[in-house]
């Protein structure tokens, strides 16, 4: 039966874990793989030491955990960060449990409260594992009970919560695809000539190569300013590119007053 198999594999898994934990000399082989996080490791340690979760000594368990992690580190195994975070926290918890609280802070939970909280989390995780197992050990459809094998006339009786017909679907698809087409291609219009900053910079660099004294930027670009549409974008892009070049120290910019012509020249390599 499928259930037995399930059992079997669970037990196998547990046995495997047990083997991993104990070597012949009575210590344990440290293998952090196969544990699902620090809480899982702590539960496994509790099981190895036959600790009763309802009456657990968190201090003892914390020590077991820290020993385990120390051994793993001594073997230079890679330990996931969350195991180390838990180790650090347990060290802190240990000190809180061992040392009497000197500065009793009302805000901060006491060591016992922290320990109780951890015990609660362990119990809760253990309980959820048990619940999951009970759930799957119980009766299940197509395993212990079966529906009618042959469906008859009312097979399409599906109380469909969501309503959409094929027309809605196709309309949405077509509209979506068209919207994207429109935003990318703008059909019916000639493609606008737009100067990129990159293109403007290339042009400026070419022009600057022949000219090393102050000159107004629109004069330098005059060769491109016939077409009114193109002139605007060329000017804007060239302005952007000139700022960039000035910042890099390739050229210098000068403007005497607001709205006055903008002059630029190549920056000489002077000392």
């Amino acid at each position: 039966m499928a259930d037995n198999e399930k059992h079997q594999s669970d037990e196998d898994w547990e046995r495997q874990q047990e083997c991993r934990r104990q070597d012949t000399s009575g210590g344990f082989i440290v293998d952090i793989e196969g544990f699902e996080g620090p809480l899982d490791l702590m539960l496994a340690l509790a099981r190895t030491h036959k600790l009763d979760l309802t009456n657990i000594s968190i201090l003892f368990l914390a020590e077991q955990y820290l020993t385990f992690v120390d051994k793993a580190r001594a073997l230079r195994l890679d330990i996931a960060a969350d195991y180390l975070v838990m180790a650090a926290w347990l060290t802190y918890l240990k000190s809180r449990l061992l040392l009497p609280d000197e500065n009793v802070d009302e805000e901060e939970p006491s060591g016992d409260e922290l320990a109780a909280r951890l015990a609660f989390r362990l119990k809760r995780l253990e309980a959820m594992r048990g619940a999951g197992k009970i759930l799957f050990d119980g009766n299940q459809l197509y395993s212990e009970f079966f529906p009618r094998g042959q469906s008859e006339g009312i097979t399409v009786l599906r109380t469909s919560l969501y309503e959409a017909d094929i027309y809605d679907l196709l309309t949405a698809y077509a509209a979506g695809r068209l919207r994207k087409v429109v935003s990318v291609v703008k059909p019916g219009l000639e493609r606008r000539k737009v100067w990129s900053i990159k293109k403007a910079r290339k042009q400026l660099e070419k022009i600057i190569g022949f000219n090393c004294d102050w000159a107004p930027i629109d004069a330098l670009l005059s060769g491109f300013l016939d077409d009114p549409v193109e002139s605007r974008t060329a000017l804007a892009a060239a302005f952007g590119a000139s700022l960039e070049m000035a910042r890099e120290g390739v050229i210098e910019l000068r403007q005497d007053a607001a709205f006055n012509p903008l002059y630029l020249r190549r920056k000489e390599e002077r000392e």
Partner: protein
Amino acid sequence: MSNITAQQRKLEALLFAATEPLDLRTMQAYLGIEQDVHNDIEKDLVALQRHYEERGVHLVKVAGKWAYRTAVDLSDLLERHKVVPRKLSRAALETLAIIAYHQPATRAEIEEIRGVTTSKGTLDVLLETSWIRPRGRRMTPGRPVTYGTSDGFLEHFGFDTIKELPGLAELKGVGLLDNNLPAGFNVPLPHDDRELQQDELPLEDADD
């Protein structure tokens, strides 16, 4: 020969023919009964249930709906019909249990219980079984999705309501169903109602 009323005959036929469990409203609609008219459907269903009690087929109530199912004690006989269940990983099984007992639960809440981060694969696999469903969003920063079990979960495990989860009363008794929810939102019992809870928002609220 047992006596059967005309309405019981109809219910029997409906429930035999249906591939899925039927709720009262659906049966009413099939029988052509107005919603608010008083009728004995429920009584008739109980009568049918009693009739089948000793037989090879039982009339059961799952997820609040009615369905015929083979008697559990005959499962060995039907070995050949068994569908090998997809084996869930340990992580998935644990996550399912946590969602079932702590629902509605966000991914962070599941992780807080398991003490480990949940890989996205685990939730995806559970969504694919259709035993869990995204319910809504928690009214906390980031608006995380809350998960709960579906009717498919109840049907698969043969529960009428989520309150039939094994061990529920004991777990509640020892406080193991408590989440770390902000005060006032503490929901000690799992809740799989369609309606959202007071700290849940609809899924698509933040939609474009």
